């Protein structure tokens, strides 16, 4: 096997890995859904570059020697094997409670006030963590006060004595590298919950004054819960936008 053929093989495998990530839905652990088709397209092109003649695997074997003598080829390209192996062996999961530290954030609310709440479904208003945290922290009209809401997230340990745990969800913009954690302190749940367990909780916001604009790390808003139900990990695992208000 010539060097050129091995390179072709690695490119084909890399392309196949990207296609598999798209096919299995694993890509959503790493990028936002809008980017997933592009991961597929990128994988297909990389695979074709590895397969098609005159240089790829499917070429006549004499053609493999075409350019290898002339062109300077860096060794660094072999590192492309690393992400392939990491994906195959580790199959990295979506970011979980261990990644929260240093990533918690309060999304910026619009200046022009908030839209009315959605209609309750089965006795509670379903909302994203982004909406809950933003309304709790930024809405001067306190639209959440007294409203029973339904949130979905996973368990992350709390800090200090504030409560038993924090319900958490990551919001990503492009990929998991830019993830930020949205959290709510859960009060009133007696059952010990395992780290990273996904929960659907219903409860009411515990009001407090809106956060100061320049508070570097305000405590997350708190939720007095009425019911807690363990659920299967939600797919896709992240929330994708913090812009929802007017």
């Amino acid at each position, binding site marked *: 096997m010539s*060097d050129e053929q*091995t390179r072709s*093989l690695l*490119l084909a495998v890399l392309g196949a890995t*990207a296609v598999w990530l798209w096919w299995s839905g694993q890509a959503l652990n*790493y*990028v936002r859904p809008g*980017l997933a088709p592009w*991961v597929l*397209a*990128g994988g297909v092109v*990389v695979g074709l*570059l590895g397969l098609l003649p*005159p*240089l*790829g695997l499917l070429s006549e074997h004499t053609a493999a020697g*075409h*350019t290898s003598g*002339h*062109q300077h*080829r*860096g*060794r*660094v390209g*072999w*590192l*492309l094997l*690393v*992400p*392939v*192996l*990491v*994906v*195959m*062996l*580790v*199959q*990295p*999961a*979506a*970011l*979980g409670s*261990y*990644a929260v530290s240093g*990533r918690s*954030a*309060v999304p*910026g609310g*619009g200046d022009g006030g908030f839209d009315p709440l959605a209609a309750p479904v089965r006795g509670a208003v379903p909302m994203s963590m982004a909406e809950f945290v933003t309304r709790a922290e930024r809405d001067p009209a306190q639209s959440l006060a007294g409203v029973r809401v339904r949130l979905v997230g996973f368990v992350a340990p709390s800090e200090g004595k504030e409560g038993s745990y924090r319900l958490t969800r990551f919001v990503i*913009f*492009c*990929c998991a*590298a*830019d993830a*930020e954690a949205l959290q709510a302190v859960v009060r009133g749940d007696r059952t010990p919950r395992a780290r990273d367990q996904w929960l659907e909780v219903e409860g009411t916001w515990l009001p407090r004054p809106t956060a100061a*604009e*320049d*508070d*570097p*790390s305000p405590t997350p808003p708190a939720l007095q819960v009425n019911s807690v139900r363990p659920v299967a990990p939600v797919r896709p695992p992240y929330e994708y936008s913090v812009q929802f208000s007017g």
Partner: protein
Amino acid sequence: MKSTLGPGQAAQEVTSREPRRRVDGRLVVLLVVVALYSRGTLTGSLNPVALRTWTTVFVAIVIQALPFLVLGVLISGAITALVSPTMLARLLPKSPALAVPSAALAGTALPGCECASVPIAGRLGARGVQPAAALTFMLAAPAVNPVVLVATAVAFPGRPEMVLARFCGSLLTSVTVGLLWWRVGDQRWVERARRRMSSAGDGPRWLAFSSAARHDLWDAGGWLVVGAAAAATLQVLVPRSLLLAVADHHVLSVLALGGLAVVLAICSEADAFVAASLREFSLTARLVFLVVGPAVDVKLIAMQAGMFGRQFAARFAPLTFSVAVVCAVLVGRVLL
């Protein structure tokens, strides 16, 4: 697997091993087969847990960059196959003083992020574009294209001046760096890329195209892996709370967000959203984040070291960083 290969180390490997030993293809096949067979065996067994976050962030950066990298190598392949040096020479102004600003404006037409522009800049240099103009294009394209500007507008609702400030800041940075490099920079580093790539482009067009695209995918992709590993490592090791401590200080906050942009290595299409969430910082400091990010970050430094050489990157990165910070602060003063 947990590659800790520094950019420097690897660059040395690339340049110094002649003749190079062949990597046995059977070894690669064996590794892949074994990996497929033991698929997922390491899931959940990674300790310390920081390593779990590391693998997710690392794979995320690589996967997210792949489509843009592919776009970049397809364009660089097309440049090689379809655009002859004489054609470029006719199209571009002769004097760098004119060619540099035109290159910056040409950057508005490439809807991608920074991973795409590095191989393209290398190819442009190889096809006879003046080095300063190619570098300017490389800096401008990921920052001033329509996709990035629209993303910025969405991330900063009600603040259109942020979009304008970002456009002006990045344009100013790329032109300034290009002109500085033309006056005082060493042109040899770009020559190096030209020499390495010159042999590609002979023969039939399809061969020229696929050979150039494969070459660039191979090199830039390898360096992307190095850069992604570095960025993931820094993300796991450097807590962001460290930065928040300096948010109130004018000078420190600007430098801190400039540094954050280098460390995080976020795609230029997403960085506006991160900047919008850094509410503790002044708008000017956040503008610095947006101007520095697409021009210089750990992933880019690795890719540039691969394309133009280690010594080039060692000079170009600090120069770009300083110019970007100064330009962003100046533009911020005027517009924000």
